[in-house]
């Protein structure tokens, strides 16, 4: 079995509005969304084909191909241009971020069950928009998108090249559905956490998952940390980041390259400050993503919010974070016996929020 991994990072989505509609290019904890699965694939196979809308900078072992036809089928087709002497293709939807690396399991499962290929599945409480996968007594997938099951397709499929090539004339999901119903696909169960980035607030869940797995603190030697600042818990502080006097950082938190945290600011758990983010004095940030070059003005309070690239919250902006509309898309937090869902504001790239604004839960500004 020689596997050609194809990471799908192209396509456009309106659901992430007002953020950049190329969702694979959005950032979480210093990486673009697609880089998480690309990293897993590279550490498993040492090589990958990366399919994108436009050329992107890549690293060793990665061949970047620009997708000509839209859809999963177009992307798989683009990846197959590099088929060479590979026997199998591993199709990876890069908008699903997994806490661990599922690909060695996926390959082992196909081999152990003597199947033509395998798909990644995960147990899910309510299947909603996901395709359910029914399995038989020996753990093979028998149907996809039909039948009572609480297992769902988790966006990775290992297929023989010949099967993948049928995307010329057949839908991708229909190809794997057909293989499943003829007993040719094994199902590998992924038990750990994962987040699909579909809506803007999914970035908050992804940041929570990624930051929640940090163990220990990394402070780049080029970072400037004031002697009166306090840093506590797992945290990453990138090169040339500044943490000014009397600022308090309570991890898990990510403070990217060149980011600035002003005097008396309070950066709380699950704050994700991307490269060049500017947090002015006396700001409190928690469970929020402040994207590249965004500014949070003096005295603001930002919780459960996404502040898009280059956006500006003028001084005194306050986000309110409960209750949330569309809360079924959020990960619940347990408070006593109750599940609590929170959502602050989603602020589009380069948007400017006037000083003193109080933003309602779920406000979307563009």
């Amino acid at each position, binding site marked *: 079995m020689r596997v050609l991994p194809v990471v799908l990072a192209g396509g456009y989505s309106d659901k992430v509005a007002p953020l950049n509609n190329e969702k694979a290019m959005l950032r979480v904890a210093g990486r673009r969304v697609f880089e998480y699965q690309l990293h897993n694939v590279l550490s498993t196979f040492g090589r990958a084909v990366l399919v994108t809308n436009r050329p992107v900078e890549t690293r060793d072992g990665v061949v970047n191909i620009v997708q000509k036809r839209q859809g999963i089928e177009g992307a798989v087709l683009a990846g197959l241009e590099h088929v060479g002497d590979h026997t199998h293709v591993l199709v990876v939807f890069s908008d699903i971020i997994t806490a661990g690396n599922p690909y060695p399991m996926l390959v082992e499962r*196909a081999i152990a069950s003597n199947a033509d290929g395998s798909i990644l599945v995960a147990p899910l*409480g309510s299947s909603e928009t996901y395709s359910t996968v029914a399995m038989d007594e020996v753990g093979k997938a028998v149907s996809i998108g039909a039948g009572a099951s*609480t297992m769902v397709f988790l966006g990775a499929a290992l297929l023989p090249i010949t099967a993948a090539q049928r995307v010329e004339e057949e839908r991708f999901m229909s190809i794997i559905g057909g293989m499943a119903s003829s007993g040719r696909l094994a199902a590998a169960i992924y038990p750990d956490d994962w987040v699909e980035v579909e809506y803007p607030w999914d970035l908050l869940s992804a940041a929570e998952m990624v930051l929640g797995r940090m163990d220990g603190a990394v402070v780049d030697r080029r970072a400037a940390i004031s002697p009166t600042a306090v840093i506590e818990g797992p945290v990453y502080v990138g090169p040339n980041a500044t943490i000014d006097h009397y600022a308090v950082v309570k991890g898990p938190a990510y403070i990217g390259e060149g980011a600035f945290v002003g005097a008396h600011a309070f950066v709380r758990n699950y704050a994700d400050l991307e490269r060049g983010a500017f947090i002015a004095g006396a700001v409190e940030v928690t469970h929020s993503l402040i994207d590249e070059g965004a500014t949070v003005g003096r005295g603001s309070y930002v919780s459960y919010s996404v502040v898009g690239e280059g956006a500006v919250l003028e001084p005194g902006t306050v986000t309110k974070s409960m209750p949330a509309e569309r809360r079924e898309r959020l990960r619940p937090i*347990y408070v006593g016996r109750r599940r609590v869902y929170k959502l602050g504001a989603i602020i589009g790239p380069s948007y400017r929020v006037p000083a003193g604004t109080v933003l309602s839960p779920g406000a979307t500004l563009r």
Partner: protein
Amino acid sequence: MCGIFGIAYRTEAPLALGPVLRRALERLEYRGYDSVGVAVMTSANSESVQVYKDVGKVSEVVGKYSIDSLRGVAGVAHTRWATHGRPSKENAHPHVDCTGAVAVVHNGIIQNYAELRERLAAAGHTFRSETDTEVIPHLIEEYMKALPPWEAFREAIGQLRGAFAIVALIASEPHTLYFARRLSPLVVGVAEESAVVASDLPTVLDHTRRVIVLHDDEYGYTAPGEVHVERGGAPVDLASRVVEISWTADMASKEGYPHYMLKEIHEQPMALAGTLSGLDWDTLRAAAEALHNARHVYIVAAGTSLHAGHVMALGLARLGVKATPIVASEVHSVVGAVGEGDLGVAISQSGETIDTLVAVRALRGAGARVMAITNVVGSSVARESDIVIYTRAGPEVAVAATKTFTTQVLVVNALLHALAEAVGNGDIAHVGDNMQRVPHMVSRVLQLTEGPIRELSRAVAGRASAYYLGRGLGLPVAMEGALKLKEVAYIHAEAYPAGESKHGPIALVADGFPVIFVFLDREVEKALMGNVMEMRARDATTIGLIPPGASHLAELFDSYVEVPYLDPYNNVILYVVPLQLLAYYAAVHRGYDPDKPRNLAKTVTVE
């Protein structure tokens, strides 16, 4: 409670021994994993063995000492679970003599080690560890001053008191392994090009399918194509002892599952189907007759197996047979009442659980006959029992028992069915008809419950404690669920008969305390509903496993999971599966490795 392995090749030229030893260590890791070590004869004419050992998991120690790259003609390997001496590099096995020419791996306890150690130290031997094991190589060294290796080994073994399985490698005989067994399991593989000895079958099966399972007090040596065993100074005839094993060692690898525990949970439909098709109804009918004729039945088991024992006791009571389930290590409390005409039932997955084995001997000593239910052919408990019923679940590697429990219950149900037919009880007879549907139903349970259970596991994972409550046959299921949660997720969990919960345990229940109810028997539904209300009144987080479509039950709970329903006896199997999953996902969510719970070993072979 350790894993031991030895291999010696016919060849004079060193082979790639490292990967073979690593593979054996990985297989044996379930038997103990606080430290790991190997000893290697790098060539046929070396004067000493090379030892590499340290504290840690197999992967850590293998990586640290590049064990994969070792070459040689013979080697021994060991995974340790500390009994004498804390886990440390010095205390890890193999242990060597003063000259480094004798390497020994050992599982068990040498009771007279202190006295031997004093004697050997006085004779000038230098000890490097705190272990009981280290006396063995020095003892062999001492006797080798006057005797050839085999005689010296035999003399040394004769000095040992206690429980042991031992493999020794002696530099002057590079193609030979010396071994001895008393109470701790040991298996010898029969092959032409290599000699193999290990604590369990799967490890030997990597090398040969023809094996000899050693009996207590047997010792001997093996070289490629040759096995010599003695007992009490006389050679043992091995012709009838060689067994061909049909299942493959490959069944003991993870096959693309993230953990053995999840793999084994998902293997249950096939394991149950295997058990079902392997049921020998003649044996079951004979066993049912023995149960029927018994004056009193004592069911002895430990841990998960005891929960299968509780199912059996409840079923027997319903069929008019007096039965008492007893924790095996407590058998001495009742043995005074045991006599001829009584029947002991020993349930043990491995058949090597020392507490159960000791209980079997006590019951037999008091005059009872004994029936065994075990998963391992030729195991000690099986050999020492009058009637043996095998569960045929295949090897189970995860420390937490899953498929071996459900197959035990299936066997128990088959026994109850056979007995019900014999005594003409219609209530339980239909259990036998439903049994055929169990494998498929378990597959459905997995599909329907794994998603919601994973979600529920997050609520439980954040809690310090949980209660599992049930009535009747729901109680053993609750007990098993609580045990699983403790074992792998390290969450304090207790099971109670639901009616008992208000006689004390309910005092702990406050806002958000998780209480899991098992509704698998419609007969006790009303009473159990009352218990749910009591817990709700204390603001507990109530979670129910309930039959499908039972809306009057669903509305009682904060969360519920519908589980397919057959009959109370077969439901024990169906309803325990979601609780296995709950423990597994809670462990994963808390970041623990469910396959290797701290402080536990798969098979408890020391008292």
